[in-house]
């Protein structure tokens, strides 16, 4: 038995039952519990390991989604001020659409695109750099 695959299979089936009848949900519940009960002691331990690992991963994903909303919210303040095309080309050497896909968490090749930790650092440095240019220009034109 591949415990990880089994948990993954049941997890995905469970997600399809969101709007299912209570009978269908009860049938799933009984089937999953029977499946666990039918395993040997070692099999149960394996399943438990895969289950808790899966829970950990889903929690991480939930935090990533919340983090995306947080970043989008913070970026919203400056999107009207700075050019996305400028930032993506000068600091990331990528297209505007590459940047927008990550900013909007668009699905790219079946996976939601997001900034990596390293890319967020580049973005943070880019914004600091731009603010330095603005401050220096502001000082130079002040009477």
């Amino acid at each position, binding site marked *: 038995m591949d415990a990880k695959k089994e948990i993954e299979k049941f997890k995905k089936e469970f997600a399809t039952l969101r709007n299912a009848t209570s009978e269908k949900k009860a049938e799933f519940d009984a089937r999953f519990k029977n499946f666990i009960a039918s395993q040997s002691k070692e099999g149960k331990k394996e399943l438990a390991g895969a*289950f808790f690992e899966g*829970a950990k991963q889903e929690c991480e994903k*939930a935090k990533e989604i*919340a983090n995306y909303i947080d970043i989008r919210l913070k970026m919203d303040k400056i999107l009207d001020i700075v050019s996305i095309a400028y930032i993506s080309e000068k600091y990331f050497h990528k297209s505007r659409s590459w940047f927008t896909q990550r900013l909007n968490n668009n699905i790219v090749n079946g996976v939601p695109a997001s900034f990596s930790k390293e890319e967020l650092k580049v973005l943070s440095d880019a914004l600091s750099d731009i603010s330095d240019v603005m401050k220096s220009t502001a000082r130079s034109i002040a009477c």
Partner: protein
Amino acid sequence: MLNKQKEIFNMLNKKERQELKALIEEEEEYLRFFALYEKEFKKFESKREWEIAVDECLDILIPLYRQLND
């Protein structure tokens, strides 16, 4: 914060909004699966390091989902 989140959701176009909603919805169901059956596994395995705060993670997602549905 929630009002700000709502502003963000309103900025997204229909397709982006649908994609984000589907993503949150799917994630929420996966977390519900783990929250619901956690006790089945704890019956025979109760290592402390395996105690994942699935409910707390659900608490992060549910308000986001509600905002998208408003």
